[in-house]
């Protein structure tokens, strides 16, 4: 792995300049939109392809994934659409199969003639769509927290046509390391699923941990669909760890945490997970999840005026029981930011989208203002550390905020040429 520490955070002044620029561009766009509304009313709708895991193993994440996007498109249409044209979603079910993503991405682009794509869920699904968007010259807006970009995995990443709306490890993990180390100890035991995202996340975490004087006392990767964790739990107990750093995914995360709680280990360790958002935590129930730590860019329980307004509209559309998470909100931001970019550009095309998405700021994002880096198509996001409340009753009181950082820059993508596409 070639992830060397390239700690190039953009200076603060840069953000201020960007803000000014986007604000100006925004006014110009608003004016041009108004001008276009009358003339373009009879136009055909703008078609957007949404690829979500609606069936298959990760259906559980599909609901929030598609709900976020649908809500944003409703809002865009109510506000007059893009350049006066309504936006229409064309759905493709990924069936949680990269093989099917190849079929669906091609169907949406070649048959439905969508203007751009949003979605795919796992890194494998995004990678499957990579060659398709590369060949067809369409843009894919990718919503999931992921492992960062490394040239080796082009065209799945480092692809000028793929924009990342979720956090990568240095945004999700690094800001909270000091707090965890100071409060709970410096020895980490890492447990993750056996694939790229946990491995790279752990690599970054280890790097920062060692910088701060901590140490990794154990690191294990578990194959998917493992029902039993006795031996791992025993290793954890004997490792002398203070903190369990958890990157298991899917049903394995629930299996592990249930057995971890059942083994009576909750009082002896601090568990910090970077995978278990609202959907998984709901599945765990309050007894198993209480007092564990979670970090993400978004939680339903964050106290931000944007979030309050967002949740109100979300519940009005999907009912009070709707579950939202980081991925769904990323889909929401992706739709709004694409609409903003196209409105500013004054035309609908890949060039317009790419030209105006870079450096675009979205102030109404539910988690707080976010902006897209033109450098590597990566979103600058807030980062929240939450503690699961004891005896929580639902998503609104599930997490208690410990700390947050706004505008966290990601590490620069490890691609051959930056800015991407030049």
């Amino acid at each position, binding site marked *: 792995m070639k992830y060397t520490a390239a700690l190039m955070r953009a200076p603060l002044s840069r953000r201020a300049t960007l803000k000014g620029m986007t604000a100006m561009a925004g006014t110009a766009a608003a004016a041009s939109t108004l001008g276009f509304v009358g003339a373009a009313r009879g136009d055909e709708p703008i078609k957007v392809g949404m690829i979500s895991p609606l069936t298959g193993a990760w259906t559980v994440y599909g609901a929030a994934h598609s709900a976020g996007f649908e809500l944003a498109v409703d809002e865009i249409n109510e506000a007059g659409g893009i350049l006066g044209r309504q936006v229409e979603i064309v759905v493709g079910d990924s069936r949680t199969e990269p093989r099917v993503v190849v079929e669906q991405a091609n169907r949406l682009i070649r048959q439905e003639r969508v203007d751009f794509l949003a979605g795919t869920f796992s890194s494998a699904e995004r990678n499957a769509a990579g060659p398709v968007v590369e060949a067809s010259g369409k843009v894919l807006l990718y919503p999931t927290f992921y492992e960062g970009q490394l040239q080796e995995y082009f065209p799945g990443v480092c692809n000028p046509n793929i924009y990342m709306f979720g956090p990568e490890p240095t945004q999700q993990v690094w800001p909270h390391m000091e707090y965890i180390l100071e409060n709970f100890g410096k020895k980490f035991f890492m447990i993750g699923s056996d694939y790229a995202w946990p491995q790279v996340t752990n690599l970054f975490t280890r790097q920062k941990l060692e910088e701060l004087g901590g140490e990794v006392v154990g690191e294990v990767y578990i194959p998917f669909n493992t029902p039993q964790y006795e031996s791992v739990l025993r290793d954890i107990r004997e490792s002398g760890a203070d903190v369990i750093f958890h990157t298991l995914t899917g049903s394995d995360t629930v299996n592990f945490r*249930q057995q971890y709680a*059942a083994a009576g280990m909750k009082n002896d360790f601090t568990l910090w997970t970077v995978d278990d958002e609202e959907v998984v935590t709901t599945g765990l129930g309050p007894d198993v999840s209480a007092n564990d730590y979670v970090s993400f860019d978004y939680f339903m329980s964050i106290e931000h005026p944007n979030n309050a307004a967002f949740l109100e509209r979300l519940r009005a559309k999907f009912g009070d029981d709707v579950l939202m998470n980081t991925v769904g909100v990323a889909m929401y931001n992706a739709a709004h930011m694409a609409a903003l970019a196209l409105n500013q550009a004054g035309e609908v095309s890949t060039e317009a989208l790419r030209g105006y998405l870079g450096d675009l700021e979205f102030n109404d994002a539910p988690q707080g203002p976010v902006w897209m880096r033109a450098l590597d198509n990566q979103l600058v996001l807030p980062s929240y550390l939450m503690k699961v409340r004891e005896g929580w009753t639902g998503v609104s009181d599930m997490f208690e905020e410990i700390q947050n950082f706004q505008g966290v820059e990601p590490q620069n993508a490890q691609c051959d040429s930056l800015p991407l596409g030049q």
Partner: protein
Amino acid sequence: MYALGVAIDATLITLVLALAAFGLAIIFGLIGVINMGHGAMLTAGAYITWVCQTNGVPFLLAVLVAAVAVAVIGLVLEHVLIRHFYDRPFETLLLTWAFFLITTEVIKIIFGPEFRSVTNPLPDAITIGGIHVPAYRAAVALFALALIVTSAVVLYRTSLGIKIRGLIQNRQMAALLGLNIGLTYKLVFMAGCFMAGLAGGLITPMLSIDPYIGNVYLVRSFFVVAVGGVGQLLGGTMIGSFLIGGSETIFAVVSEQAVAQTIVFALAILVLRLRPRGVLTPR
């Protein structure tokens, strides 16, 4: 100390896997049907337990309801489809696989794809010789042992069991003796489904309940049964479970988990090759 820990882990995993595979072993061992729907039956058992518990039914009663309900589903499946195909192993295999596909989809439509969980009735750990053992898992393991031994006693020591085994060895003879073959097959199939539902209910406190919960045990269970051998309910299931589940723990001590799994499957194929009728049969 470390060795004791590994031994306890291996024992627990073996027994829980034996429980999960037992329903399959009954059906395959006694009436020769590979129930590819076994995984879906575990899943159904888990969901029914969850529904009952969230509606205030005590856990053990909920598990019992789940087992009975899955037995009834099995009865319908057997009566409508399976009984017409007992002499065609491929057809029963494919029909039960179709049952798996359909049931998984129906479960998703009824219950949704979300992760569910039930409250663990025995949430703490007990200590054996300095080793921490999750209390619930230990209880389930003991129950599995008791269940399998009891079933073996019924099968080998009671007149009902002897009749059933006679039937399997010689259907014509059994028919001449006035045994109702159709009914016996039906009962055996139901018993297997009952065990699947029971296992599905009992594993809920340890695993996430989602539409794919049964898949985790599906392939492992097949190997348990295939390696254990036809008709070897007690020893076969135990040895098969140990080879498939317990040995994985032991391999995992010296290698990565994923490698350990692959080794175990390769080993299982080897055993199948050398003892096509199961480990306990003489060559």
